[in-house]
């Protein structure tokens, strides 16, 4: 006896296709609707997509730009200057956060109970306070309150003044500090805030990585006569790195994205320049594409580098 005919909507071979067709149709309709409106609204405002505006003079200034910039430079130069500013803070921030984060992560395994406790307090404190709040704190409460001129905080080779951070051989000339390397207060505040915040998360990644190394490894190393520092360097870290590197990837991307909060510190990063550009030109869609593309590119570069690093630290097994 032939089996009864299966209705198409109950046929388990057809159902996957039906579902995909339905979802696909829904998405297409939605996208068509949104894009249609977009084109219509842009046309009505006379803002149809074009890139010709990007050569026009910017008309605004960028403080603390590494690239030489003035108000008559074109928009694309301004955006590039913003990107360079972002990269400055991201690269230095990554290095700084990694160093501090690793130190705190390792400290949580110290034999000294006070050190361990402080590391714990540091992490729990930083993680539960919003980054933006920490950034405005560093900028408005700490760095802008630095004394100026002769009262500035002077350490060997470093001067912290209200006019900026001076590195190298800072000297006071006519009441104004000068040095080979000068960092604006905005940059310093943003950098400090980012380093402190991300280091808390990196320390957790490092802690998790070290904790994943079996205790037997520590004991064996001690039995062989290694000092704690040697144990860490030669035995534990190489085994912890394969666990740490993927977690670092996430945190580095997080730092790169968090740099976009620079606007709160008055630092002219890519987002800040882009916002000004959008406000002036009204070219919302084009500016958005540039912004999102730039951050996506940064993420891809970081991920690619970290994946290469990951392959390099994987333990070779026979």
């Amino acid at each position, binding site marked *: 006896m032939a089996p009864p005919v299966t209705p198409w909507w109950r046929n388990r071979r057809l159902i996957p296709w039906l579902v995909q067709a339905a979802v696909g149709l829904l998405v297409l309709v939605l996208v068509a609707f949104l894009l249609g409106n977009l084109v219509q609204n842009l046309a009505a405002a006379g803002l149809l997509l074009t890139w010709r505006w990007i050569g026009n003079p910017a008309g605004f200034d960028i403080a603390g730009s590494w690239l030489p910039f003035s108000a008559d430079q074109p928009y694309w130069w301004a955006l590039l200057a913003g990107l360079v500013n972002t990269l400055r803070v991201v690269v230095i921030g990554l290095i700084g956060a990694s160093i501090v984060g690793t130190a705190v992560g390792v400290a949580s395994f110290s034999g000294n109970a*006070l050190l361990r406790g*402080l590391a714990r307090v540091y992490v729990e404190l930083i993680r*539960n306070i*919003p980054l933006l709040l920490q950034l405005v704190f560093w900028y408005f409460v700490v760095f802008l309150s630095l004394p100026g001129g002769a009262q500035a905080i002077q350490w060997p080779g470093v001067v912290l003044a209200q006019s900026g951070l001076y590195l190298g051989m800072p000297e006071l000339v006519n009441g104004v500090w000068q040095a080979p390397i000068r960092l604006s207060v905005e940059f310093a505040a943003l950098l400090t805030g980012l380093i402190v915040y991300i280091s808390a998360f990196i320390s957790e990644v490092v802690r998790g990585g070290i904790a994943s190394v079996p205790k037997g490894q520590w004991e064996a190393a001690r039995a062989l006569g290694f000092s704690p520092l040697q144990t860490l360097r030669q035995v534990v870290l190489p085994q912890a790195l394969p666990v740490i590197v993927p977690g670092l990837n996430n945190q580095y991307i997080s730092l790169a*994205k968090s740099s976009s909060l620079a*606007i709160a510190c008055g630092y002219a990063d890519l*987002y800040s320049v882009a916002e000004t550009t959008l406000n002036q030109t009204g070219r919302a*869609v084009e500016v958005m594409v540039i912004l999102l593309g730039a*951050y996506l590119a940064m993420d891809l570069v970081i991920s690619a580098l970290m994946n290469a690093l990951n392959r390099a630290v994987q333990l070779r097994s026979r």
Partner: protein
Amino acid sequence: MERSSSLQRLRAALFASRLDGLITVVLLAALLAGGQALLHWLVFKAQWAVIQANSTLFAIGRYPLDQQWRLWLLSVLLAAATGVSWGWLRAFPRPDRRARLWPANDRLAAAVLAGLALLLPLFLELSAVISQRWWGITALLLACRWWAGRLGPALPAAFRRGWPVIWPLLYLLGMTLIAGGLGLPVVSPSRWGGLLLTLIEASFAILLCFPLGVLLALGRRSRLPLLRWLSVLYIEFIRGAPLITLLFLGQNILGLLLPGGFSPDRVWRAAWVLTFFAAAYVAEAVRSGLVALPPGQMEAARALGLPVHQAMLKVVLPQALRVALPAMVGQFINLLQDTTLLSLIGLFELLGTARAVMANPAFLGKDAEVYLVLAVLFWCCCAALGLGSRALETRLNSNPQPA
């Protein structure tokens, strides 16, 4: 005997070697110096007038005075519901565990609540009327907790099973009370501010990003290629973009995407952006839960005759969500912190209100006080969420200690 052993332990913990001892001394010195400076500033130099004068602004923004009774009503209802839920949670422990009605944690929590209720109005120099209202609300919470714990078991089981439905109802009622409608005059979202706005944005995004995130996670793991690619595209796009750019996008482009340039209020635009943003991260958390699932679960459920949706709801998702819970709550905590970014697009939640308040010449230079209070507030909320998550984890953990 005892004193020397604890002294020995202290010595081992802090002065085990010369280096250790040096570290301890340096750290202690730094801590003492820093602590002393902080205390000195707190007691003598800090001027809290900026907080006290603007406490209403920080709490509820520019909500019209004559409609504030609605917020008080909502607070009363929330206090009652929280107290009852808390009490019943304790009165009906899991069948395989012993539990006391007032464990140490609860007593601590009650003490903290009572302490806060007494001290905060003093610190904020609230008027007598408002102080009394807060005392009343806290007392109501604790009274409901006591009543539910003591008399709860007497109520019929059906009532208790149906209780969780009070929360979505209360949420809807709360939004109606806050926003207006159903006979109440409308209060425009532009008048919402401070802690009220922060909580509205955070709660909206947390509630909606959860189902959306679960759908995305299921799509990501689906065998159907179209669903998988759409989910991957969405998740990777969102994860590659800084939140501020997406908020910016929401504010500027949403109007262009809807017919006639219509766009909802800025508050809702931001809330939806937060939702779509968090959903991508929640999806990744849920996905890790789905991956952790033993492979035969779905098969066993289907072999018993369970249809797909029942298998998902009763077998797969409960297990996946239990595993994903810590990561999910981590995302919710991030969401709460991310509401501060709304201050950069012109909304007056807590941080935005703070910035506006400090622009007032009368309060110039009081940044430290304000930011400190905000930091403490956020820290307490986030730490509380973290504690709650760990408590929830323990309760749901189906690998209890051996009897």
